[in-house]
């Protein structure tokens, strides 16, 4: 078994595509065929209507910042971000599929603004776990 075989997603069902090629993965979504709501990750039931007719969708790579904050203190618990801690932006990223995803926004947090265009950026952590953030574009 090689080291790359142990690569894992930070949450099961969060990504679509081969985790060994981060340039080709995307966030996975679940679209309810009854109420048309799309939720993050692979879900077997719709949290809106309870329906179980769910289709997997590949979420768009780009979206816009609907709201954000700057986290200025280290979060409690087993935070795997930069050490030593540096303040970071956390946003609600609106995607064309009709949902807003909570995610960190990389780069200088003081340059983030509502409405800013951002792109999905997966990251392989040193512990061989794939997580994600968004980065400002354009």
């Amino acid at each position, binding site marked *: 078994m090689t080291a790359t075989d142990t690569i894992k997603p930070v949450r099961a069902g969060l990504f679509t595509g081969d985790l060994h090629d981060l340039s080709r993965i995307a966030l996975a979504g679940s679209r309810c065929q009854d109420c048309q709501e799309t939720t993050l990750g692979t879900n077997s039931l719709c949290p809106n209507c309870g329906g179980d007719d769910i289709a997997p969708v590949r979420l768009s790579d780009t979206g816009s910042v609907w709201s954000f904050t700057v986290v200025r203190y280290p979060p409690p618990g087993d935070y795997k971000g930069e050490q030593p801690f540096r303040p970071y932006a956390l946003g609600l990223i609106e995607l064309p599929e009709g949902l807003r995803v*909570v995610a960190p926004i990389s780069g200088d947090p003081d340059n983030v603004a509502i409405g800013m265009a951002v792109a999905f950026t997966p990251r392989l952590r040193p512990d061989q776990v794939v997580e994600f953030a968004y980065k400002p574009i354009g």
Partner: protein
Amino acid sequence: MRDVVIIGAGIHPFGRFDQTAEEIGSYAARMALEDAGVSWGDIQASYLSRMYLPATSGARILRKLGATDMPIVDIEAACASGGAALRQAVLAIKSGVCDVVMVLGAEKMPRGFMDPRMIYADWQIEMGMSLNPSYWSMRAMRHMHEYGTTDLQIAKIAHKNHRNSVHNPNAMYQKEFTLEEILGSPLICDPIRRLEICAPDDGAAAVVVASEDYARKIGARKPIRIAACEHTIARYSADFRCPADSMSARVNNEGPTEVTAQKAYEQAGFGADQIDCFEVQDTDAFCELEIYEELKLCPRGEGGRLIDEGVTELTGKHPVNMSGGLISKGEPVGASHLGQVHEIVLQLRGEAGPRQVQSAKTGLGHVLGAGGNCAVTILQA
């Protein structure tokens, strides 16, 4: 259905103490019994509101008052635990099964940000999405963007609550701060600052709840009617204060405060306009501003105007957080709503001393937290 009244209220100060949960909880419970003029042996059922205390804490705490064979149940609904517990008491009495019951809220919590494993998944913790204030702050940033709400308006709410706390010996912090001090305090999560946010702590509060007939029979002093006690969970995508990982951008459901308050107003038969005083979930100062709008004290987007005009000051038309709010008292989660109820009971009895709202006859308590749990209680003299 029978009317339900509060015949006694007690409180242990909110703050940080060496005493055990058993000690502070039984202190508040005894005070409520004494205030009601009933003995522990008269109580037919008890409900403990708590989130962080271990299993069967209700039995552990209330055992100190003496052996009993009554049912004692722990109730948990995050920050709304106290409302959920009070509601069980109301239902027990309305059903006719009980005539007089105890509702106790008690908590002991570690310092600092709350343990994220209570409400977040591991992946959210690892990615830095487990800081409660970050979710409140994203709401604030969006509100500022849409309605032009300002840092100064948010700071004014913290200023009001800290100033009110000076008159509340049960608050953890009883210190007034200037607007400059508040706006100069460190940002926790933009735009929310250290002096605009509540801290977890220890505390307990209790009420003795009875049927109106029972209150009359024992000649209860100044019974306070529970006009409404509602508890709801947020509708789909209606609140990202809870540890949501994604929200709908298509659905615009009413938030849990709006839904719960509407139910409570219908139950009470009157609305915000006819309520004389409010104790609400100021987890942070912006949260209180948004609650003004959701309780229908003003239209959406005008919470900032309300604080500018002084409407929610102690001497305003609709005073909010006369006790100093959670910003001053801290939030011992299980005890916080019962603490609000204790404050409103004092107000409606005219016993609130220097923080008394002139001729208050009605009051509302509101709590809101993880999972979109919300509770609203309306009391009437």
